[in-house]
């Protein structure tokens, strides 16, 4: 009895009660860093360093990393939604087609309907266009989700049907004609020299992000103190703050090290009467707008998944659908909401993809569903349900895009690229299975 009292008075958490072993284990348990996430970041760095040497020093340059971030944005946004879909043991094969049809609808809205209504180049065009796209995504998601939840048709079949239907619908919008060019403000969502926030704003955002990280750690600590729960040691909090802020500052430093192309900078200087110094004008890109949107989506989705009732229900349903139903959760409505969210995220991804291309084509988003699912799965989302994180899926998307980008830099043929990506997907999931089995 004595040791029982001692145990419960010192600490109620088994993890902090058993801090033994080597310094690395101690460090990991004190900081409560997810080892799986750490493994993924390690794998990502390995891929980057590997490609850096194999491509002759082309990979880890500000230019390539900046481009990589922009290329990843669209897939990673959709992957955040796919996590919730897969966690509840569903699948969405229609996201690529959804992206296509929404991009077409938004293209027509901003180039044909709105200019006629508001006048060409009206500043509100991009907002209304985005709203139309999001409404479209929500509606399609609600339709597919309702069929899955209430008519009990398996998600695989419903979205396989959606895959064909929405790809056909994308063609139908303009009978296959490509819509271009798009509204100039809308285009900023796609990145490029204009579609990045620049040097100063990037650093301001970095400072805000660092303050947010510190603020969150302090808030969490205060919450734990409120009920006298065991807390992380102060040094561990410090390490976490340092790692978080270091990642933010490092990323912004890289983005700010990538200058505008010389010709564009010259044009800009001439237009604004800025003298061009010797060796050319250095105007930094800063963080690209699509990357900001993706980060925003990641933060919001993480919040939804971990801090709201809806998120809690999603994971509870994924683990044990019957138990969730018996606990009084309206599982069908939750399913509909998940697919609506997925549709909305497809709309955001569609605006980024079409803005980046400065055109809406009916083939847009082809094969995206597979990359999105692969990103979620590489990111640790379990197809048997109940397990997955938003940040993992986003890193998964970055891994996929890094592979593609690196192989392009190495000059690999595109068939070989597909083969490598396919093999990596299978190996990644196999490693994850090994990791999970060890954990049990």
């Amino acid at each position, binding site marked *: 009895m004595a040791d*029982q009292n001692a*145990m*419960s008075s010192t600490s*109620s*958490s*088994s*993890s902090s*009660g058993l801090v033994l072993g080597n310094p690395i284990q101690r460090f990991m348990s004190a900081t409560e860093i997810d080892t799986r996430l750490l493994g993924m970041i390690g794998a990502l760095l390995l891929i980057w360093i590997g490609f850096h040497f194999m491509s002759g020093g082309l990979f880890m340059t500000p230019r390539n990393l900046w481009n990589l971030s922009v290329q990843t944005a669209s897939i990673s946004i959709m992957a955040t939604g796919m996590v919730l879909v897969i966690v509840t043991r569903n699948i969405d094969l229609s996201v690529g087609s959804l992206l296509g049809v929404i991009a077409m609808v938004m293209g027509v809205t901003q180039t044909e309907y709105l200019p006629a209504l508001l006048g060409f180049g009206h500043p509100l065009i991009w907002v209304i266009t985005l709203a139309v796209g999001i409404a479209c995504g929500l509606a399609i998601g609600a339709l597919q989700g309702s069929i899955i939840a209430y008519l009990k048709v398996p998600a695989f079949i419903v979205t396989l049907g959606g895959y064909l239907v929405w790809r056909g619908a994308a063609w139908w919008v303009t009978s296959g004609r490509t819509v271009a060019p798009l509204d100039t403000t809308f285009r900023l969502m796609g990145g490029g020299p204009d579609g990045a926030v620049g040097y100063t704003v990037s650093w301001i955002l970095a400072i805000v992000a660092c303050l947010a990280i510190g603020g969150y750690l302090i808030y969490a600590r205060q*919450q*734990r103190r*409120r*009920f006298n*729960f065991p807390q992380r040691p102060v040094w561990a909090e410090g390490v976490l703050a340092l790692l978080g802020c270091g990642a933010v500052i490092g990323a912004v430093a890289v983005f700010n090290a990538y200058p505008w192309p010389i010709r564009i900078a010259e044009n800009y200087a001439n237009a604004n009467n800025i003298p061009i110094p010797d060796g050319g004008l250095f105007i930094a890109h800063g963080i690209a707008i699509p990357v900001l949107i993706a980060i925003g989506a990641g933060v919001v989705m993480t*919040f939804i998944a*971990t*801090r*709201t*009732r809806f*998120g*809690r*229900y999603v*994971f*509870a*349903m*994924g*683990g*044990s659908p*019957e*138990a*969730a*139903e*018996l*606990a*009084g*959760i*309206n599982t069908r409505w939750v399913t509909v909401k998940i697919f609506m969210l997925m549709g909305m995220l497809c709309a955001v991804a569609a605006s980024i993809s079409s803005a980046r291309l400065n055109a809406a084509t009916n083939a847009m988003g082809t094969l995206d569903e597979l990359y999105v699912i692969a990103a979620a799965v590489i990111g640790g989302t379990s197809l048997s349900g*109940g*397990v997955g994180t938003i940040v993992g899926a986003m890193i998964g998307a970055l891994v996929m895009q890094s592979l593609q980008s690196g192989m392009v830099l190495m000059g690999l043929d595109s068939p070989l690229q597909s083969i490598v990506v396919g093999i990596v997907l299978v190996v990644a999931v196999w490693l994850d299975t090994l990791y999970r089995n060890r954990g049990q």
Partner: protein
Amino acid sequence: MNQHVTAPLVELEDISIAFGGIRAVDGASIDLFPGEVVGLLGHNGAGKSTLIKILSGAYKRDSGDIRIDGQAATINNPRDAKGYGIETIYQTLAVADNVDAAANLFLGRELTTAIGTLDDVAMEHKAREVMGRLNPNFRRFKEPVKALSGGQRQSVAIARAILFNARILIMDEPTAALGPQETTQVGDLIKQLKSEGIGIFLISHDIHDVFDLADRVCVMKNGQVVGTAKTTDVTKDEVLGMIILGKCPPGATPGPGAMKE
């Protein structure tokens, strides 16, 4: 049993449900008073769990009436049942495997902060309090319930049921997965809840689990009620006869399923 002067807490009257051609429950009637433990006995497949799942909202009855406090009650899903203060601990331990104990206790009824986000620390605090009372050895609050032992999962399921001031508690084979020490704990808990005026349905196919705890027993066979009796009026052997043969002893009130002499 002067408590029977008060109105019954729950009355199930002439309940029937069929799956395909099989009448799983056939015209069953049963009632429960405040502070009373009613043991529902019968073989596997006798219809006990099905009858009780109708009360807890998991199944929809084909016919019959449910009255709570004498008023007709509408129970179409588990949410409705919880609205009447009916909490159920299922035989299959219906806990959400991949979330932690606190999340399970509050599943469907989460505590939220002023801005509507989950108040995890408050939930963990309450969970530690309840679990401390129920199972002082329980310390694995941060792990998914999947990682817990059968007994620990059971205490999570029980804690969930009593957390929200249940008035009617349904326990479907509550000790099936437990060791002897934990079984005793559950027995003590039932006595404590009973003294607080909660009505309890205790379902089991093992008479020894139930007989000492129950005020009355109700035996089912082939979907029908064989008979109902106060545990003081019948012996264990007589109840066994009811379960196995459907033979109603003189101390019991016969139901439609009693063997015709």
